[in-house]
């Protein structure tokens, strides 16, 4: 016997003990696919036959069954399953996960069962038990269909069992191997003229063919493309039969797919003689069909009957269904799935137009597959959580719309006329002042509205964040716990927060005696990784600042979905407002915006917004409290503690005490304190107003449609220098040098430059791989390394860090953890921008940014 089994099924083996279920299961299914009640008994009680453990064993069995079905895995339940109750609970699980239920009954002759039982030693019960079980199985056989099983097979002899062949069948909706490209077309409703026009616009050629007094259509798609019709081909419009003809012809030629809409299904029921209400445009269709031949109507019936509720295409990346489909139903087959595909989800309420209120499932959609659907007419298509409704209400006077996949291009043809009045108005009446959008208030898009409230589930707990460089970044639960507090208490509105800068590791600890850090180590690091060139950029001693700036408030509202009177924002490396003084921030951003206009960057980048990674100077602008409470305070304590020490030492020395050692030590200490104070003083300037601020951008991170991580650092530096010329008072072009790692002179030049910069009191420099991205295929390296000057490090490592003993100990610092974080945060930052630029839902951008903040909570030596 050939047994057909759909790929996603719940299979119940039914049969008395010793009927051979386990052997049958073993022969035909994988070990992981078979869950036996005996084994579950064994797991919970150490004994396979412990009847006391039955309840717990079945709870476990049901749990495993549910988990497998949830994951789309076939499962075989090896238990007697002789009682209706036990089958009912399994059937319920199958329904919940939209799996197809299959029963295979092994109904062996009683004599055989008893014979087998007597030969077994592992079944310590009387043969009466088996006789009773067999009776129950026999009674069950009649009831299986009524209980609701979809496929029922019964095997009555060992020979039949032996001869079984199991054929696993793909579900009809599974078209994963078809990758497109596709032209997906929304609800046509008999608008045949618009359909032809749209197909032609998409590059299809349509030829009318006459055959035996019938008109057929020969449609030639552009090379390699296929059309997908989202259903509701008929009703309301003027030419439903022609639409059906064309679609059927295309499908016959294997040039199109079609999923059914609720109108199509209703028509089928009518044609099949069912009693349906002739409403909502069915009347027109029936009238039009009156002129059609019997054969045609037969053909339509067969066609409609065969339509599959939805398709999963392109390796699971695309799902098409008339009314859309929730993630957990995709690629499944059940009555619930089919009805969702046809009718969508309603809340049960009725609106003022007497129509059911639709529940917007797409608002909560988090699936990986793009879902393209129709069903509900809307004035304009709009992306929401990777789903798009392309029913633009052609028949109601809107437009017929197609979505090109994978291009995501939307193509529309306006309706030639209004064929039908919509019960619920969906088009904005441009003459009605009430519904005309006021120009100054930008309405949030559906996506932006959903983005207003992020779900805690998307950030809390352990997370694996996939980056497009094929590296997963893991966020541990404790890290997320800390980040949640930082994010929700201190960070700016997540809608602005499209990026956070990564931490940066110092170069490896120098082997030179007097240095903790030295550029040679960084050069060696990159050379060892096969890089030819690096760029050295002067490191400014200020505070890290990220700037998002838009052309105007309107652009900010439109792109970032924030209903606030601001056109930009400046925030810190932990996502907090950089400026406490909003007036100052506004002045500052206005100046930057003017500079961008002056150099024509808005046009050149074809963008309404920029995101910059910068250093904002002076250090005192942001870190004043830290300097006063920490650096200056320690300096003051040290200096004034020592003032009294040296005279007292001298006094004791004058008494003839042996004070030389102490004297030397404290003189050295006093001089180190002086150096320490000078080191931090060099970076302190009073900030009175905007004129005291300097901004040194170093990355033009992203603009509309583009993340500029594909450009090398020379491009970034050059463009920024160009911008800086527009406002030299505010903007600072960072000095840089390109070093050829295999050229000794060039390397020496780099070292000399660093020595020169740090001798002048500079912080040092940042050495970056010439290309922005630090990942290529399998290999990756630090995107940037800092190399800080000797005196600057005094601020970080303490007054007398360079004392010989101290330095020796400080050199034993480990950098691995820091480097790991630097790379992961860098990847997440770039990923966040990529996702934002691709207009993905905010939760996906936020996930990355939140991840960076979470990684930053990791305990690493803060001096690195």
């Amino acid at each position: 016997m050939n047994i057909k089994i759909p790929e996603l099924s719940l299979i119940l083996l039914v049969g008395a003990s010793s009927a051979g279920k386990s052997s049958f299961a073993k022969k035909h299914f994988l070990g992981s696919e078979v869950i036996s009640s005996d084994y579950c008994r064994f797991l919970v009680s150490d004994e396979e036959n412990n009847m006391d453990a039955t309840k717990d064993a079945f709870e476990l069995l049901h749990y495993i069954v549910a988990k497998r079905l949830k994951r789309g895995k076939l499962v075989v339940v090896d238990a007697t399953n002789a009682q209706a109750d036990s089958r009912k609970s399994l059937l319920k699980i199958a329904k919940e996960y939209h799996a197809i239920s299959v029963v295979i009954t092994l109904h062996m002759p009683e004599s055989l069962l008893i014979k087998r039982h007597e030969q077994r030693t592992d079944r310590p019960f009387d043969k009466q038990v088996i006789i009773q079980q067999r009776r129950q199985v026999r009674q069950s056989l009649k009831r299986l269909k009524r209980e609701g099983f979809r496929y029922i097979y019964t095997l009555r002899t060992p020979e039949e069992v032996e001869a079984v062949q199991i054929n696993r069948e793909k579900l009809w909706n599974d078209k994963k191997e078809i990758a497109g490209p596709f032209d997906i077309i929304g609800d046509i409703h008999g608008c045949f003229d618009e359909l032809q026009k749209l197909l032609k616009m998409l590059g299809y050629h349509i030829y009318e063919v006459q055959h035996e007094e019938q008109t057929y259509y020969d449609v030639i798609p552009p090379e390699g493309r296929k059309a997908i019709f989202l259903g509701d081909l008929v009703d309301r419009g003027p030419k439903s039969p022609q639409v059906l003809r064309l679609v059927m012809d295309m499908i016959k030629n294997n040039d199109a797919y079609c999923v059914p809409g609720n109108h199509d299904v209703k028509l089928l029921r009518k044609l099949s003689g069912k009693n349906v209400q002739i409403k909502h445009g069915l009347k027109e269709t029936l009238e039009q069909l009156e002129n059609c031949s019997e054969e045609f109507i037969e053909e339509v019936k067969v066609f409609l009957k065969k339509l599959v509720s939805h398709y999963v295409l392109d390796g699971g990346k695309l799902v098409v269904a008339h009314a859309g489909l929730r993630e957990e139903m995709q690629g499944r087959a059940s009555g619930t799935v089919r009805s969702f595909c046809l009718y969508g989800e309603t809340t049960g309420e009725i609106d003022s137009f007497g129509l059911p209120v639709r529940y917007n499932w797409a608002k909560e959609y988090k699936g990986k597959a793009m879902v393209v659907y129709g069903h509900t007419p809307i004035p304009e298509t709009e992306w929401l959580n990777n789903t798009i409704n392309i029913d633009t209400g052609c028949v109601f006077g809107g437009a017929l719309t197609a979505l090109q996949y994978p291009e995501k291009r939307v193509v529309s043809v306006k309706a030639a006329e209004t064929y039908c009045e919509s019960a619920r108005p969906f088009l904005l009446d441009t003459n009605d002042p009430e519904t005309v959008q006021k120009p100054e208030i930008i309405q949030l898009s559906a996506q932006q509205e959903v983005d207003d409230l992020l779900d805690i589930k998307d950030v809390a707990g352990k997370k694996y964040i996939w980056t497009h460089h094929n590296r997963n970044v893991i966020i541990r639960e404790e890290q997320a716990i800390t980040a949640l507090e930082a994010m929700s208490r201190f960070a700016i509105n997540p809608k602005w927060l499209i990026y956070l800068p990564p931490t940066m590791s110092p170069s490896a600890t120098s082997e030179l005696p007097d240095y903790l850090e030295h550029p040679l180590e960084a050069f060696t690091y990159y050379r060892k990784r096969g890089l030819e060139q690096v760029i050295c950029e002067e490191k400014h001693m200020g505070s890290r600042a990220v700037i998002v700036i838009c052309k105007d408030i309107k652009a900010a509202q439109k792109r970032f979905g924030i209903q606030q009177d601001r056109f930009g924002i400046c925030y810190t490396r932990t996502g907090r407002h950089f400026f406490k003084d909003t007036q100052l921030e506004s002045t500052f951003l206005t100046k930057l915006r003017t500079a961008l206009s002056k150099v024509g960057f808005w046009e050149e980048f074809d963008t309404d917004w920029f995101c910059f990674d910068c250093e904002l100077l002076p250090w005192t602008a942001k870190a004043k409290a830290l300097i006063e409470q920490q650096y200056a305070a320690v300096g003051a304590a040290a200096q004034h503690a020592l003032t009294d020490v040296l005279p007292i030492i001298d006094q004791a020395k004058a008494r003839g005490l042996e004070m030389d050692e102490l004297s030397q030590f404290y003189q050295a200490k006093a001089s180190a304190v002086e150096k320490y104070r000078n080191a931090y003083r060099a970076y302190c300037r009073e900030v009175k107003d905007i004129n005291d601020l300097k901004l040194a951008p170093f990355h033009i991170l992203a603009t509309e449609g583009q993340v500029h991580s594909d450009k090398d650092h020379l491009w970034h530096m050059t463009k920024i220098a160009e911008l800086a010329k527009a406002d030299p008072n505010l903007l600072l072009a960072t000095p840089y040098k390109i070093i050829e790692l295999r050229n000794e002179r060039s390397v020496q030049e780099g070292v000399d430059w660093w020595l020169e910069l740090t001798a002048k009191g500079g912080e040092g420099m940042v050495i970056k791989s010439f290309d922005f991205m630090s990942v290529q295929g399998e290999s990756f390296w630090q995107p940037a390394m800092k190399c800080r000057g000797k005196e600057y490090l005094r601020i970080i490592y303490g007054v007398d860090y360079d004392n010989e003993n101290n330095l020796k100990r400080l050199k034993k610092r480990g950098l691995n953890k820091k480097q790991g974080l630097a790379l992961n945060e860098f990847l997440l930052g770039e990923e966040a921008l990529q996702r934002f630029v691709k207009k993905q839902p905010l939760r996906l951008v936020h996930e990355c940014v939140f991840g960076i903040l979470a990684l930053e909570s990791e305990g690493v030596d803060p001096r690195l």
Partner: protein
Amino acid sequence: MLLTIKTYHHPATDIGFLLHKHPDKVQSFSITGGKVHVFYPEANEDSCTVAMLMELNSIDLVRKLKVPGSSSLLKHYINDRPYVASSFTSHAIAKVFSSALNGKCANRQDLLETPMSFDVKISVLKVRGGLPLLEKIFQPLGYIVSAEQHPLDENFEEWGSSPYYTVLLQTKSTKYLKALLTHLYVLLPVFDNEKHYWIGKNEADKLLQRGEGWLAQHPEKEWITRRYLKNFSSLSKYALKKMLDDEYEVIEEDVVALIEPEKVEKKQNLHQQRLNAALEKLKESKAKSVLDLGCGEGKLLRMLLKESQFERILGMDVSFKSLQRAKEKLYMDNMAPRQKARINLIQGALTYYDERLKDYDAAAVIEVIEHLELDRIPAFEKVLFEVAKPQTVVLTTPNAEYNVNYNFLQKDSFRHSDHRFEWTRAEFQDWTKHVCETYGYSVNIFPIGEETERIGAPSQMAVFSISQ
């Protein structure tokens, strides 16, 4: 850090016998985190000065002293510990002058009974509270205090003064050296509230030992005790009780900072009033399940648990640390199963959609919204009034108008440094009105605390319920 003690006793060099340190020697001792050098810059019959020069290695400090409970300052790699008098100094005194501190002098017993006059100089001491605080502490013990405050940085006058002082203490009348050292031992660490070691019961006993005979009479004994024990209130209570022969009654939360006006709302019981009022409203609402959003360390939760009306209680806070404290304070780990089944604590933020908040009858949001940025309030509204949507919401926030009654507040500043805004009664009312219109609630507003004419009560409470 340098400590010098000069005496005018005749012959002054007798101090060498008491200290067990020969005036002609330079001696070094190792202590936790560094070294102490002892030498005499002057030593003659008329005046003799001993110098204790403490040298701490700040890198050592961070590496070696990873003590639980060690204060945040030590965690910084740049710290002032090597330069200021602190608990390290007490430690050093006990180490190098141990016999003098304990009143032992085998060779010259007579000197123990000889009072002397001293000048003590400390370079430097960190004092938040300045000369007045120094005087409050040292004057009752018979010292004349003078102190020089140092600027943060001479090159940046606008930064103002540092908290560091060079302090000179002169004995008004003669004193035993033991008493002087004991005073320094106990009092030097109390000024900056930093301690480098774990504070346990034996610290309290040490304080009792060193403070014997003088601390109980000191007018600021409570403050000294609390600061010495790093504000561990149970330890302070223990120490004060012992010190005062168990007669001392400690009133909960009567801690009033001595000189430093901490930003506490004057009436310490205001918070309790708020919680009582909220509890009352929650009880009236007939709610069976209740959310405490921003539950902090669980004060309200404890009150809710006592009411059998509440069958399901969920406490949520964004601070994991607070939740852990709440768990401890509620003895969650040892709670009886029936009790435990009633309560749950979760970490969450009020600006994120959170389905765990659904299906509760009531919510308490006590002094929470003022900790959110104003532009995040719309998200908060959605979470509370649209997602959680309890039948009743009890929400409190400060009344900004009342702030004029708090002398310690500067104009336009908030009661708490983390407050992002404080609303007047009118502003609060406007917001509640907006909430009612948007989410279908009705509201009643109540004052909390004593009302003052024209400015209202210190706190305000809104009770929302879903409109029928």
